[in-house]
């Protein structure tokens, strides 16, 4: 594949090419110009660096967990420490990586440009969101440095309120604050998408990436406050013992589960929807075709968001919810799987009669399609009531949500970062290395998590520090896979960092894509467009692009 020159890369002549003299990166200098910036692109870069930082901290904990599980005996660390490891891994990865990853980095950078706007609706709130995110991150690190917390990321009461003497409140504060970052980001996106579209940019001319971020924003704005409330109640219960969740005071510990999952199930869609948007863009670009059934894909995002609010109790099928409410939630869970299936088939049929090339983002997108299909279908196992009894709280569920969130979301994030890297930095990355990273990640991922499905059906419970001897072989396989996976994640760190200084000059539109963001210079000007663009064609209109390539790009300063 690599030898046959399938590439459509449209790079300028490297001998004469330079980065644009004026762009958002060099518009101002000095640390303060970054810390007080109102530019959505600079804020996106701040997010990208901080999110990457937390991803590798969370990843380090994942590595420690897998290392401990190499042997059945509790030999690497004590059980308390192990419990702190998986708690930190969960909190960091979910609240500080997966939830903000695509919206806060790629969404922040791209949504205004894709809509033809100069910035988000509220630039200062956007900056505030990043500060809140960093404050949340700081509290998380504080909880870690002060001695850790071992509630698990789910903060289950009464364990978190009455039985642990670790830094529960510090960690809860972290999540509370980080939650507001997410609420503000969602609010900013919703207002921007409603109010700041360029002339001609109708709802159904918006790129699908904008649609999916719009759907995710609705979830962020409506769901996150409920988490905040649940967290505050945990803190109050812990400090002054209000007894909302305490059965000895007439409270109900299941109430916490309802409140918590009312946010935390939709949170899965906050994570995955923006990733789905990335996949739509990437698949369309490298097929040179409009996404098959654009409207269906757009509406399926909204459908996922709406249905996503009504399935939370499927986390409680074995917890003593009534049999009949279990029925309802199981049925709704099955319904929410349908829009995901629609998307997968629409993406697959986008390839039909396309003119396909396989650059790195496309490889990641293909990886996403395979892994997300497994993740989604194994979700049906868990939505199916009887099956859930045996599988829930085992490694099957661990494998399932890692397939969706890591296999799906992280692949999509990497696809997006590679896809828009030339736009964000103006430079390309080494093609062969990046393809190697994509393939390594895919192999490592499957080796890590496929054995966990089997472990789960065998009955190995999750969050176990030590386990019976007979589970060892599969755990060793999983740990070996995690090592490969780690390499797959480190590689992009290295070559992307390298490309910042030495990468080939990318030009405005290396992929010959149709989005508005590709019609302006790379890296863009601070004000994105010198003249407000007029959207006079549908999204993904490659015929329009073919006619346009002859003309001079109008927006270079």
């Amino acid at each position, binding site marked *: 594949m690599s030898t046959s020159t399938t590439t459509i890369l449209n790079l300028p002549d490297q001998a004469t090419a330079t980065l644009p003299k004026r762009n958002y990166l060099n518009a101002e200098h000095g640390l303060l110009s970054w810390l007080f910036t109102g530019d959505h692109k600079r804020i996106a870069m701040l997010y990208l660096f901080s999110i990457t930082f937390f991803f590798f901290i969370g990843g380090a904990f994942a590595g420690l967990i897998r290392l401990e599980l190499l042997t059945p005996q509790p030999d690497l660390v004590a059980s*308390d420490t192990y419990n702190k490891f998986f708690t930190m891994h969960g909190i960091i990865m979910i609240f500080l990586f997966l939830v903000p990853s695509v919206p806060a980095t790629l969404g922040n950078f791209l949504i205004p440009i894709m809509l033809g706007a100069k910035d988000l609706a509220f630039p200062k709130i956007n900056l505030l969101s990043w500060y809140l995110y960093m404050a949340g991150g700081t509290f998380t690190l504080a909880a870690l440095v002060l001695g850790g917390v071992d509630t698990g990321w789910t903060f289950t009461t009464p364990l978190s309120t009455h039985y642990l003497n670790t830094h529960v409140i510090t960690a809860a504060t972290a999540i509370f604050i980080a939650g507001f970052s997410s609420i503000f980001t969602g609010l900013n996106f919703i207002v921007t998408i409603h109010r700041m579209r360029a002339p001609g940019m109708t709802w159904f001319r918006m790129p699908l990436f904008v649609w999916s971020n719009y759907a995710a924003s609705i979830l962020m704005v409506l769901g996150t406050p409920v988490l905040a409330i649940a967290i505050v109640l945990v803190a109050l219960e812990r400090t002054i013992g209000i007894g909302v969740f305490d059965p000895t005071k007439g409270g109900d510990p299941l109430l916490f589960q309802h409140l918590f999952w009312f946010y935390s199930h939709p949170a899965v869609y906050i994570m995955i929807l923006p990733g789905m948007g990335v996949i739509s863009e990437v698949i369309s670009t490298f097929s040179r075709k409009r996404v098959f059934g654009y409207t269906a894909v757009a509406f399926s995002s909204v459908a996922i968001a709406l249905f996503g609010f009504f399935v939370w109790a499927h986390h409680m099928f074995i917890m*003593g919810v009534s049999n009949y409410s279990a029925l309802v939630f*199981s049925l709704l869970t099955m*319904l929410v799987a349908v829009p995901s299936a629609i998307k997968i088939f629409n993406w*697959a049929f986008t390839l039909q009669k396309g003119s396909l090339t396989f650059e790195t983002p496309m490889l990641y997108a293909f990886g996403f399609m395979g892994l997300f299909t497994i993740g989604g*279908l194994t979700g049906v196992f868990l939505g199916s009531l009887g099956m859930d009894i045996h599988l829930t*709280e085992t490694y099957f569920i661990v494998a399932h949500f890692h397939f969706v969130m890591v296999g799906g979301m992280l692949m999509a994030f990497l696809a997006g970062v590679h896809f828009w890297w030339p736009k964000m930095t103006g430079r390309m990355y080494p093609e062969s290395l990046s393809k190697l990273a994509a393939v390594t990640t895919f192999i490592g991922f499957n080796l890590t998590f496929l054995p966990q499905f089997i472990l789960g059906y065998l*009955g190995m419970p*999750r969050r176990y520090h030590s386990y019976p001897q*007979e589970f060892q072989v599969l755990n060793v396989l999983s740990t070996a896979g995690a090592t490969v996976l780690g390499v797959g994640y480190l590689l992009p760190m290295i070559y992307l960092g390298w490309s910042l200084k030495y990468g080939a000059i990318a030009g405005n539109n290396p992929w010959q894509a149709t989005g508005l963001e590709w019609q302006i210079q790379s890296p863009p000007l601070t004000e994105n467009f010198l003249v407000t663009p007029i959207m006079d064609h549908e999204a993904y209109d490659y015929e329009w692009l073919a006619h346009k390539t002859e003309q001079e790009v109008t927006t270079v300063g």
Partner: protein
Amino acid sequence: MHISPVLWQFLVKWLTASALFPREASTIAPYMDALYFFLLAMTILGLVLVGALLTFFSIRYRKERNPVATHIEGSTLLEATWTIIPLAIFLVCFVWGALLYFRIYSPPVNAMNIYVVGKQWMWKAEHPGGQHEINALHVPIGKPVQLTMISQDVFHSFSIPDFRVKREVIPGRYSTVWFEATTPGTYHIFCTQYCGTQHSGMIGEVTALTPDDYQKWTQESTSGMSLAQNGERLFASMGCNACHSGSAAARGPNLAGVYGSKLQLANGSQVLVNDAYLRDAILNPSQHVTAGFAPIMPTYQGQISEDGLIDLVEFVKNMPTNYRVQQTLVTSQSDQTAPTASGMVKP
């Protein structure tokens, strides 16, 4: 199960021998596994379909073979197809799963009852005959066993993978699960809900015995006092018999035969008296005042352990006449066997 039984046996034996599959040791297990193989087949089919589409299109429409893309807007027929077919398959999964769920969570009426108390970090099983076990459970094969479980502190979850059953053990309320073991042997008990430091140490073994062996085990490990007898002692020592004396002029309702009946409450509602109601009525009496009685009973919250509550409940459960209450009024010490209810399974 619509697979040929011979083929099924062969498949299960082969999988079990390859250690990729748990043993099937309860009557539920084959039903669970049948659904599992259906879901597995559906997943593999879906994955192969998506994989085949991606591979085929990637080869057929790569740039060298198809330099110019053809514009396609979409196809309502195709999209309807891949909306309706997955929906139909998912609905089959839903119905099948729901049937299994009701089967697993609806105990048969003739099930024998064993109490389980979960606490950080041990499982404590209490047989009606007074046998106590820690992190162990002995059950007979070929007989439905219902576990009535409660947690003394945090959420735990009681799981026996080889029986394919699991249920959350919740502080403050009874939850139940039942199974019928089919093969003698020992199987893992896991706590699957994260419950603090020693979570992975909260494991045990369930030993399925032939009825004869089980009989032998109960005789060898009895403490001499049944749960109901312990309850009777507790009943006397807490002074319950002062009010619940069973006489017409008593300040509290007569408890004889109350278990399983419908009770008229002072607030006008009617409740079914079961284990959960009895427990709650002892802990929060003011919320469960029986019609015709004054709300004078104090709360026993924090004064009786979960084990003690189980004993009391078992005592009330097995009290078809008020003979025992009359006896305990006379003496708070008793070494006689409490009379057994007709439905009680003698160990």
